[in-house]
Structures are given as structure tokens and as C-alpha cells.
């Protein structure tokens, strides 16, 4: 993805990377818009923009467009969903009802503040690191979670598609025989050995050489890393 804002990267608690990928993740609902601090995002853009750039106006316009869409999306997501069976054109709440609701909310706010202090005060307790295994018969298994885990496990056992692969036309044994035959005439370089071979045959030849070296039939000599590799008969 290369848009006008492709050079703008963001560092947020919930995401770190190109801004355009952040937009894509939000649109694909792989990242919750509620978790994205928009104010921080705007601040990051303002700090990163270069007002002298000839592209400044175009980039600003692009950013304002996408950021406004994020604001709209977030504000819509913040609205509570209507309950099942609840009519959209419901009668507005009476002042008494509103007062009741606000009273409850005020109490919840106070409770939340008290809870914050309580959680903070208790955050420094660390229990023994030893977690005892569940006792037999006490382990509770959630049927849904078990089903989900089983699906994940068994989906990995499915055979991967191989239609795109061509038929295998060479084996390690064949190339091991070829290497041993070449070595009967003296040491041979890997380059010389694989000259004219396709990539598959070259790779299998290397595997065959390693296999022969492992069983002690030949020695591999490479004076320096990535330097020329020479195969010679052992003993």
C-alpha cells in the first residue's frame, strides 16, 4: 500500500507502524477503533509534518480526511447499541428518569474512583509463583473453548495445497551416486558439480553432499564463510 501518507508512521500503545496500515486494520476490524487514541494520533501527525514541504497541503488534506473518518467511526461506535426489540423512535426519558439514571451513574463514577485507589494499593502484592495444577475432577472445561481449540489444532493437520508444485524428478540417492562418481576422478568443487543443474537439483545435490559428509564418505572444505566449497573423498 503506497498512498500519500505512506511515509507517516505512528507509535501508539495499541499499534506501531505505518499510519495507512493502521487505517486498514481498523477498517478490517482487526483493531478496535475504541482503543485508538485519536488525539494522540493527531498530535503525532502534527509533530511529524513538515510545513515547508511542497506536499504539505496535499498530505494535510489527506490526513484531515482520514482522521475525520476515524472520529466519525469512533463516535458512532461509542453510541450504545439499541437493545433487542427496542424501537429507534423510543419516547425520550422523563426528567425524573434521567435524574435517576444520572444518580446511578454518579454513584458508579464514585465507586470507580474508589476502586482505582483500591486496585493501585493492592498492585504490589505478588503471590507465590507456584501455581498448583488443578485437582482431578475439579478442572472445568468450557465446551465452546474446547471446540474452538480442537478446530484450531485439527485445521493444522489438514494437508497443505500442493497443486502449484511440480513433480519431484530427482532424489538425494541419485545425486549422492553422481557425487561419488565425480569424486572418483578427484576433488570437485560444488560449483563445478552443479553446473548446468536447475535450482532444485542444486539444492538436492547440496543435501546429498551433507548427507555423505555426515556418514563419513566425503569431506567438505570451505576456507572461508561463503567461499568456494570443495568436495573430496574421505580417507
Amino acid at each position, binding site marked *: 500500500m503506497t498512498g500519500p501518507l505512506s511515509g507517516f508512521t505512528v507509535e501508539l*500503545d495499541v499499534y506501531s507502524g505505518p499510519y495507512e496500515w493502521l487505517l486498514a486494520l481498523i477498517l478490517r476490524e482487526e483493531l*478496535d477503533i*475504541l*482503543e485508538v487514541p485519536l488525539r494522540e494520533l493527531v498530535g503525532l501527525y502534527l509533530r511529524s509534518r513538515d510545513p515547508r514541504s511542497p506536499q504539505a497541503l496535499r498530505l494535510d488534506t489527506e490526513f484531515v480526511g482520514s482522521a475525520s473518518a476515524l472520529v466519525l467511526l469512533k463516535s458512532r*461506535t*461509542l*453510541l*450504545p*447499541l439499541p*437493545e*433487542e426489540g427496542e424501537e429507534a423512535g423510543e419516547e425520550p426519558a422523563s*426528567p*425524573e428518569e*434521567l*435524574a435517576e*439514571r*444520572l*444518580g*446511578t*451513574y*454518579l*454513584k*458508579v*463514577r*464514585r*465507586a*470507580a*474512583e*474508589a*476502586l*482505582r485507589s*483500591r*486496585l*493501585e*494499593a*493492592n*498492585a*504490589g*502484592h*505478588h*503471590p*507465590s*509463583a*507456584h*501455581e*498448583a495444577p488443578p485437582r482431578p475432577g475439579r478442572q472445568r472445561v468450557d465446551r465452546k473453548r474446547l471446540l474452538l481449540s480442537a478446530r484450531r489444532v485439527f485445521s493444522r493437520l489438514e494437508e497443505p495445497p500442493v497443486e502449484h508444485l511440480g513433480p519431484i524428478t530427482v532424489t538425494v540417492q541419485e545425486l549422492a551416486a553422481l557425487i561419488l562418481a565425480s569424486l572418483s576422478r578427484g576433488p570437485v568443487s560444488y560449483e563445478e558439480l552443479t553446473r548446468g543443474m536447475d535450482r532444485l537439483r542444486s539444492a538436492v545435490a547440496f543435501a546429498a553432499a551433507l548427507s555423505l559428509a555426515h556418514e563419513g564418505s566425503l569431506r567438505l572444505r570451505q576456507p572461508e564463510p561463503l567461499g568456494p566449497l570443495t568436495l573430496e573423498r574421505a580417507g
Partner: protein
Amino acid sequence: MRPAHLVEAVLFSSARPVSRGALASCTGLSAGEVERALAELAGRYSPERSGVVLREVAGGFQLATNPACSAAVERFRGEARPAPLSAAAHEVLACVLYLGPLTRGAISRVRGVNSDAVVRTLIERGLLAEKGSSEEGQAALLDVTEDFLVAAGASSREDFPPLESLVREEELERVRERLLRGEGR
């Protein structure tokens, strides 16, 4: 072996709080002996006298490090504390603690905003859990967990001050007055 030693050993070996019943059952002590052992351990493991403290949390007892030593313990374990909860998360927890178990919709109605994302975070952190479904339909009911009680240092729901005590009646009256005055305009 003295009863306090037995209780101490069991508590030391467990990361989770251990109930009085479980302590009596595994040590073979009577309820009275367990109670006396716990009283003795509470004195020995008080925050003023020890780096390890005895906590009464989530319906049981737990040995944990003294918060005064937390910096050293966290350095040693090489782990940071989880990020502090947001104000919205505290509100959702307070809703469920005092008014729960509640459905996601009911939490959103109390707060006046959609709270699904916050609920999801709290479930992931093990502080809320689904406990059955509502009578009217299939919506899951959410309740606070044992981990929440441990994190809040509470033995049970009753350990929290009553909701009514958190706001003075005069404050609520002012809210009503403002709303009614606003309607008259």
C-alpha cells in the same frame, strides 16, 4: 508439627487463595485450630514485620509479598506490572461489582456509551467473566472474578463500601434540581 506451621506451609505452596475449609481439610486441623493458626500467622506476616504478608482475599487466605518490597520483586522477576486500567475500565468494573451480574447492554445503558471493547479487555485480563445468561434472552451475564477480588484485596463483594454511601444525598438532590430546572426553560 504446630498447626501454624502446617497452615503456613500450605499457604506458601499455593499461588491461589486457600479457603478455611480447604486448610482444615488438607492439614487435618479443626476449624478452631485453623482460626488460631491464621491469627498467629497474621501477626507474624504483618506488613510492619515481614516482607511477606498474609492476605484475606477472594474467600480465602494467601501469602504474598509486601507491597513495600514490590520494586525489588518486580526487578528480580523481570516483569512489569500490567498497564493500569483506564477510567472506563474502572467504571465497568464498578457497574458489574455493584449492580451485577449484568449484560453488556445493561453496562452500556448505565454508562451511556458502548462498553463492549472495555468489557473485552477486562475479560482478557481475567477481571470479568461470563456467568450464565440473562432471563430474558441469550445475552451473557458478566460478573467479577476471583482474580478481581484478589487484585482489589477483597475477601468478597461485601468488603466494598455500599454504593449508597459513595454519594451524599445532597449531591443527588442537586442533580435532580438541575435537571428539573433545565426542563422548565
